[in-house]
């Protein structure tokens, strides 16, 4: 029922256009994450849905009901804000109750819902405290509780975890995911953190400069990024890109990297349309897919022999950076191996053809 639908949304502030001609459909019960760098329009889109700002043109529907011109409170939404935005002079209970008494629910129902949310979020001992007496994580839970008690079909989250420390962020992430599983409500969640997006979302809408670049499940977004922007944005360390020229000599597609003499066999790559001789493309290599020396076993589509520039270890993971003619190439290497790497050592790395990404050099679209 509560299908959220944006149609031909256009939003500009003065002369600055933030969103242009945007369409997005969110199914019932989905957990959709709007992901993108700062200033990409994701928060604007969320505020448009919430009714906190007005669209310049376009239509927003929730559950088949047009809400474009409705007041925020009439849209059947609840929102969790980045700064929590708790009412400072009200107790936790008062914060939860404010939205309910505005809906003219009777007192017993209000108390029942507050008790339910407090139990779910484990904030029962805090109910009579003021926000100033709570820690960051507790405030965050109260803010989520204030949205939950309204029992609306659609919940909005505006970067709710960005003010928490790393440990609390992981815990709260799991908690929000659990809440979604329990309540089965539709959630629209804005973040710039790809880990949050990858772990929680059923679908991710990746935005850049007011345009949705790709809207798909986390797996597809990672495995088959629609364009160069998505490919570069998802994944850490970021994907390595090299310009190359396609050759179809002998009916077997291959590409020659322009900066080095490396030849890449494209036979293992499934093209959406057959490549032509001389096409200019950009090849993407994810750091985590490089095969360490000695493991390629001859079925690598490409082999790089590059000198080590420096290495990074982060406990369970390690990344080596290799010097190329145009910059650095990042490759994930197991921490055990990386200890042997010294600056200047020339290492031979393989890359499997099935993990390649090929993009059109001019349009940036996946081929």
């Amino acid at each position, binding site marked *: 029922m509560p299908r959220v639908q944006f149609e031909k949304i256009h939003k500009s502030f003065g002369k600055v256009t933030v969103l242009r001609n945007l369409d997005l459909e969110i199914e019932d019960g989905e957990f959709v994450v709007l992901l993108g760098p700062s200033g990409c329009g994701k928060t604007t889109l969320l*505020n448009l849905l*919430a*009714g*906190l700002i007005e669209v310049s043109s376009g239509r927003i529907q929730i559950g088949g009901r047009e809400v474009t011109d409705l*007041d*925020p*409170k*009439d849209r059947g*939404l*609840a*929102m969790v*804000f*980045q*700064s*929590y*935005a*708790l*009412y*400072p*002079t*009200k107790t936790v209970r008062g914060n939860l109750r*404010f*939205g309910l008494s*505005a809906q003219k629910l009777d007192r017993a129902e209000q108390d029942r819902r507050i008790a339910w949310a407090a139990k779910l979020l484990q904030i029962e001992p805090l109910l009579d405290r*003021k*926000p*100033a*007496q*709570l*820690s*960051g994580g507790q*405030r965050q839970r109260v803010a989520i509780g*204030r949205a939950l008690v*309204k029992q609306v079909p659609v919940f909005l989250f505006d970067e709710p975890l960005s*003010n928490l420390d790393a440990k609390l962020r992981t815990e709260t992430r799991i908690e929000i995911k659990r809440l979604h599983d329990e309540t089965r409500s539709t959630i629209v969640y804005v973040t710039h953190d790809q880990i949050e997006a990858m772990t929680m979302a059923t679908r991710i809408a990746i935005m850049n400069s007011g345009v949705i670049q790709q809207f798909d499940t986390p797996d597809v977004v990672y495995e088959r990024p629609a364009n160069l922007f998505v490919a570069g944005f998802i994944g850490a360390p970021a994907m390595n890109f090299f310009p190359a020229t396609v050759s179809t000599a002998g009916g077997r597609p291959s590409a020659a990297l322009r900066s080095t003499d490396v030849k890449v066999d494209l036979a293992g790559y499934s093209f959406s349309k057959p490549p032509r001789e001389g096409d200019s493309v950009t090849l993407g290599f994810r750091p985590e897919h490089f095969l360490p020396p000695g493991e390629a076993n001859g079925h690598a589509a490409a082999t790089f022999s590059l000198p080590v520039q420096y290495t990074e270890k982060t406990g369970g993971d390690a990344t080596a950076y290799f010097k190329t003619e145009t910059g650095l190439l990042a490759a994930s290497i197991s921490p055990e191996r990386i200890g042997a790497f010294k600056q200047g050592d020339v290492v031979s790395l393989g890359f499997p053809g099935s993990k390649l990404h090929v993009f059109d050099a001019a349009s940036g679209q996946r081929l």
Partner: protein
Amino acid sequence: MTTVAETSLAAGRSLDEPIAFPARKRRIKGSSIAILVFLTICALFFCVPLYVVVVTSLKSMDQIRLGDIFSLPWTLDFSAWVTAWDKSCSGTLCQGVKVGFLNSLEILFPSLILSMGLSCVTGYALALWNVKWANTFLFILFLCAFVPFQIIMVPLIVITGFLHVYGTIWGIAVVHAVLAMPILTLIFRNYYKDIPTEIISAALMDSGSFWRIFREIILPMSGNIMIVVLILQITSIWNDFLIGLTYGGIGTQPMTVILANVVITALGEANYNVDMAAALLTALPPLVIYFVLGKFFVQGITAGAIKG
């Protein structure tokens, strides 16, 4: 000093005893002397007349006639205060300044409620709601703050007359509210502008009602600014003379007007002690307000609303 330091050293310093770094003695600089002299002159500027008023009010007329205005009273004589409060004459009416005190109180409360209520809600609307032409309106208000009262005095008499409040307490209250509105609205608006927009957004999604948000969220957060404006308004309403004189009827003249009458009404000799006592009595209430309300200046009213 030295001996003390030596003995403590000789006693042996334990490890957990904090090591004191002797603070470098600050020298008094020329500039700070200049500031001190300036401040002293400023203080004297206010204190000397006040001293004269206080001692004169406690003197008997016999001592005052000697003309030595700086001398201390021979005996502490509060009879002038009693006379000023209870029996001094304003025109033909000899009931003291207490009449004016009661009138001033009656003027104070409606004026306070009207002026603060109006400007508080206007400031809230201008700061936190999307009001059309809000900036133009603010600019006009800002201009109004510079219009001298004397210019609009006569038109206001006509308007209050038209509203049938001329010569009543409500007439005075309306004029006070109108005159205070520009500056108070600006004060409230600037204060509310600093409330994080996300709190308002949250309230909009929760309730959306202008008055409900004002009553339940905004008003409880306004403690600080309310105290400031309250002190400002009590002082200006209580000390006002011209509005009370112009718009008050015979029975509604504020204390300041009565005081002026007491001072200019003299049968025979001028009773300086009574005049001074009456002046002090009139000036006392705002002073009391400063001392009482000063305590309630609350800090950090929004603490905890936003991330810690």
